[in-house]
């Protein structure tokens, strides 16, 4: 299938600081692609460059064959953007916001009117359309924020962490609407630091950390990178160091690796249950106090942990 988005060695620097360090990936038409990574990974900067808000410092990117650097207006007509920050006029009503942004995207008269009503229905705010946005709850504002991005039926929709800070019910509605949009043929670049969102929505996932794309593929492909291994995660006392425990655990049979981050020791092994007793015994012998133990089965969080030694939300 043809790529709706092609990114080649994209770089974005702010002064000497490189927020995006040469990332490469494609999104096929009709695909939901997630960029998964912790805060500060460079996801928002990537979307900012691809949406033509900022010019790239290096590399190239094309939306349906149009360069984001040289053909910005053509790109803007093809894309929709749902920014992480709410970008609405609080003193205008939901409908007034949609009408204004619809007109900015070239919609007129009957087409605009019809489309506004459709989007209000889609985001479930038809009965609140006449109220000013400042009276909306956080979830409602997020939904209207998404609605603005959909008005002109873009071929590629950028959604930058659209569920941050909202209630589970609204979050559920947003995830369902993303899947709906995709069923209607819209391609989506979705950024998040919630692994479960990336797992639920995406055909493929790119994992970002410190400006680099450290893994790329379907969930199955990514988890296979870490094998079928479990990860035993121990949270230890904050006044103690886990380095000694990690060193002791590495020598246990069945342990593939042991990493320490702050006050967490992560032990990777084929079957975590089998090594749990030995690890706890080692901790007791060293006088390390354990606050909690959990087993993480292979998922994107485990992939991230395996690749970086840190959790997504550390």
């Amino acid at each position, binding site marked *: 299938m043809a790529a709706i988005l092609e990114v080649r060695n994209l770089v974005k620097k702010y002064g000497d600081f490189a927020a995006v360090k040469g990332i490469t990936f494609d999104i096929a038409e009709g695909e939901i692609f997630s960029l998964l990574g912790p805060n500060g990974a460079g996801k928002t900067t990537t979307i900012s460059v691809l*949406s033509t808000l900022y010019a790239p410092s290096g590399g190239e990117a094309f939306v349906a064959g149009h360069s984001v650097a040289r053909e910005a207006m053509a790109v803007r007509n093809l894309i929709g953007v749902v*920014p992480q920050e709410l970008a609405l006029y609080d003193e205008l009503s939901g409908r007034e916001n949609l009408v204004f942004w619809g007109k900015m*995207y070239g919609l007129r008269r009957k087409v605009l009117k019809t489309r506004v009503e459709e989007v209000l229905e889609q985001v479930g705010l038809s009965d609140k359309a006449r109220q000013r946005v400042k009276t909306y709850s956080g979830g409602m504002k997020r939904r209207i924020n998404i609605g603005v991005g959909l008005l002109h039926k873009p071929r590629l929709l950028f959604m930058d962490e659209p569920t941050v800070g909202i209630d589970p019910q609204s979050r559920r509605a947003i995830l369902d609407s993303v899947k709906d949009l995709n069923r209607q043929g819209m391609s989506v670049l979705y950024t998040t630091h919630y692994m479960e969102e990336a797992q639920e929505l995406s055909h493929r996932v790119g994992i970002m950390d410190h400006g680099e794309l450290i893994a790329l593929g379907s969930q199955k492909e990514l988890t296979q990178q870490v094998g079928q291994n479990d990860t035993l995660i121990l949270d230890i006392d904050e006044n103690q160091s886990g380095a000694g425990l990690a060193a002791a655990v590495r020598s246990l049979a069945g342990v593939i690796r042991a990493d320490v981050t702050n006050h967490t020791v992560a032990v990777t092994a084929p079957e975590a249950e089998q090594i749990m007793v030995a690890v706890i015994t080692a901790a007791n012998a060293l006088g390390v106090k354990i606050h909690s133990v959990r087993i993480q089965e292979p998922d994107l969080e485990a992939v991230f942990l395996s690749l970086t030694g840190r959790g997504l939300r550390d």
Partner: protein
Amino acid sequence: MRKLLLIAFKDFRLVARDRAALVLMLLAPFLLTLGLGAVTGRFSGASASGISRIPVVLANLDRGPLGSDLVAVLRSDELHDLVDPTLSDDLAAARSIVDANKAVALIVIPAGFTDSVIPPQGQAAPAAAAPIELYANPTAPTSVGVVKTVLDRFASQVEVGRVAGQVAVTQLLASGRIRMQDTSSIGLAAGVQEANAAEQESVITLSSVTPSGRAVPFDVLAVLAPGMALMFLMYTASNGSRTILTERNHGTLPRLVVSPTRTWQILGGKMIGIYLTGVVQMFVLIFGMALLFRIQWGDSYAVQALVLAAVFGAVGWGMIVAALAKTPGQVNAVGTAIMLTFGILGGTFVDSSRLPAWFRTLTKVTPNAWGVEGFTTLALGGGLRDVVTPIFALLVMGLVLFALALLLIRRRGLADY
């Protein structure tokens, strides 16, 4: 063009829903103008000028005809509507009346005033005439100014008469047509005759005569109200330009940037929105003040042209502030400072004609100064031709400032704003 107007009308609508902004744009200038009207007596006097029946106390210590003449002038029918004199022999009591704000001034005609101007027979003329003392109430500068003008005019007539009398006596004495002992009486008679002949008009009226010769009644509010309106226009200009930065903070500016809209359309739309808001504000104030305060603004076409130019100049300043500021808070602070400073420089609070020449030149960087000049000219009967200079200056000001602001914003990058 469509997107320019879309953005402009969106901004106008947002301002119209901002109660705090509406209070500062409309209510505050109305209230301040109302206050000025009350202070100047504009609403209490029968005269539209706001200056009528000025209470003064007279103490005539002179026993000669000139002292009596001054009293007669102040009590004449011609000045009946302007001054309300009260005679007093007690200087201390008279000063107390002024100090108690029951009179704006005490005029003391000193003893020997007539003799100091027209020396008695056999006496030499003193080096200078005995001065008329004006003990003024500092809280009524306008009224005191009027009284002083009347006194100045009288003193001028007296001087004319004195000089004429001296010349006549000298010539007659030299020709032998009069004797030395007759010089005093003849000099006095000649002086009075010359002074009366020199008097073009004994009526002191507050009016202006336009270049076409048409006289219009003076209205103090027609001079003060434009200053108020223009000062709060500067608030509108800076408040409007502040929205560029608040939109950045709220995310709507980046959203505008990534929509199929060019940078010049976004900035042009913002500027048109501010301009539209300023124009509506000015016309609401002008119409409202005409209705409520009966202010005659003058030639309607000229007023409209002046308003359009004044707003353009003000918006230019607003855009410069936005181009240089980094946060909405900075725009707020600088905008408020500019509003007050330009108000002072432009003549809202102080009559700049009394200030040094270099200061008057400095005021020309403000739209307030040009606007007040133009509105005053129109209120005093001027027409469109009489305000071409202020209109041109305001348009040039707006054009230069907007171009500079655009350059600064584009260099910074709208997305990085």
